[in-house]
C-alpha cells in the first residue's frame, strides 16, 4: 500500500499544489484524505489548484524545536479554492499583512527534522505575489 497523500508530494515536485474535492457536497478540503471532513462522504477526488491564496494570519517564532532556526515566519494561507493550510513563509515578518496575496510553491527541505518516508521530497513555502500577479 502506498501512502494516501503521495500524489500531493509527487505533484508538488513539479510545482503543482493538489487538494481534494468531494463529489458529494462539492466542497474542497486539505489535507487530502479519503473521507470528506465536511460531509463524511468517500467519493473524493484529487484536483489541481493554482497554489494562490491570501494570507489569513501569520507569526514569527523566536524559539522552537532544535531542528529549526529559532526565528521562523509561519502563516495560515487561505487558498483561492477554499481550504486553509499552515505554511512557512519565505518573506520577512515585517513585510507581511493579513490579506496579502501569496502562492504555495515547492522548496527544498533543509531542517534537521525526520519526515520519515518524505525524506527525499520537497516541502512547500508561501511566497508573496505582487498585486499584479494575484
Amino acid at each position, binding site marked *: 500500500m502506498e501512502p494516501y497523500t503521495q500524489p500531493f508530494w509527487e505533484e508538488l515536485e513539479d510545482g503543482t499544489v493538489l487538494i481534494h474535492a468531494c463529489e458529494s457536497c462539492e466542497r474542497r478540503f486539505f489535507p487530502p484524505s479519503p473521507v470528506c471532513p465536511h460531509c463524511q462522504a468517500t467519493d473524493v477526488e484529487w484536483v489541481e489548484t493554482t497554489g494562490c491564496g491570501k494570507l*489569513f494570519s501569520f507569526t514569527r*517564532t*523566536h524559539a522552537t524545536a*532544535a531542528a529549526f532556526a529559532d526565528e521562523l515566519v509561519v502563516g495560515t494561507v487561505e487558498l483561492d479554492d477554499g481550504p486553509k493550510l*499552515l505554511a512557512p513563509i519565505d518573506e520577512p515578518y515585517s513585510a507581511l499583512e493579513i490579506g496579502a496575496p501569496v502562492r504555495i510553491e515547492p522548496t527544498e*527541505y533543509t531542517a534537521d527534522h525526520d519526515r520519515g518516508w518524505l525524506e527525499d521530497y520537497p516541502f512547500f513555502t508561501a511566497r508573496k505575489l505582487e498585486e499584479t500577479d494575484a
Partner: protein
Amino acid sequence: MTGAVTPTVVGVGTVPNGTHSVPERDLALTVLRDALDEAPIELGAVDGLYMPAPRPWTQQGFFSTYLLRVLGLDVSQSLEISTGGTSGGHAFHTAVSDIREGRVETALVLAVERNSTIDTTGPYFEYILKSFDAEFESPIGMTVPAAYAQSMQRYVHEHGLDRDDLAEIVVKNRKNGAENPEGLFDDAPARDEVLDARPVADPIRLFDCPAPCDGAAAILLTGTEEPSPSGITVTGTGFHHEPTHFLMGPDADPTELPAVGQAVDSALDRADNAIDDIDVFEPYAPFPHIEAMITEELGLAERGQGVDACLAGRTAPDGEIPISPSGGCLGRGHPPMVTPLLNYIEAVRQLRKTAATQISDAERVLTTAEHGHLNGVTAAVFAGGCD
C-alpha cells in the same frame, strides 16, 4: 439534576505551583494526604482513581497502577487519560459520572506534573511538535504559541482592536495570581512591562504565555442523595469537540470558540442554570485574547468586546463577571495536567468562602478546560457553600 446521586466534593489538596525537587509520587501522596485530612472518610473507602496520564518525561510510568499498589487500594474503576489540557477535565468528569451512576462511591481525582525536569527549549518543543499534523505541519517547526499568535493576530485584525489593550488581561490575572499563596508569582507586571517583554511568537510576548511549572492536586468526591446547602456539589458537566485540530479544520474560525459555548451550555443545562446564575468564572484561558474570546462565547460581551469587558473592570474580582480570581493559567502558573483541578479547587474555595481573592456571595462557579486551540473543551458547574 437528573441523577439520584449528586457528586459532592469532600476534600481537596494542592501543593504550590513552582519547582519541586521530589518525585511525582511524593507530590501525589502529599496532595492526597491533605485531601483526606479535610474529608470525613478513610483512604480505604476510595473505590475509584482518575488521573491525567503524567507527561512522557515523568520517570515513573504506569503511574495509576503504581499508585494503587503504593496505597494498597482495591478499586472498581481506574482511569489514566491523555488528551492534552483536557486530561484533568476528562478524569474529573468520568469520576463525576461514575458517582452519579453508582459505579463508585468515593472517587479520588489526582493530577501531578513536573516541568522542572525537562529542558523547555529542546525536548519539550520536540514533544509539542508531534501535536500538529505530522506530515504537513510538524515539519514547519510549529509551536503552541505560534498557533495562538495567529489567532491573536486575526482576532485583533477582524475586530479592529488595539493589540496593546490585551496586556490589561495579563495585568489583571497576574494581580490576582500574586494574591494566591499557591501561585507561581509574587508580583504583577505593569502594562508596559507586559508589552516590553521578550517576544515568543509575534505578537505574543513572554507574559502573554502561561508559565510552565510543577504542581499537583487531589479532589475527593462522594455521592450524596440529599446534599446539604453547605455542601459543595458538582451540579453540571459538559464536553464538546469541534471538527478542528489547532487552527485547522472544515470551516475553522480561530477567532471564535464554539466548543466553549457548547460545553458550557451542556453543563449549565445539566445544572439547571443560566449563565447569569454564575457568580465566578475560572476558565482555562492560556493566552489573553482567549480570555476575551471566552467572555464573548459565553455571551458576557458582544463579539470583539471581550477586551473591553476587562478594560471596564467587569472581569475584575469586584466586577460583575469575575474571571480567574485565582490568577488562572496566566497569573497562577501552568502545569497543564493539573490546571483543570486547580480550577475546580478554586471553585470549591470560592464556595467555602476561603479563596485568597474571595468573590462575595459566591454560590455558583463555572470552570473550563481545553486542549489544542480550544478544539476540545470540558466545563463544570459547582454550587453550594450556603449557610
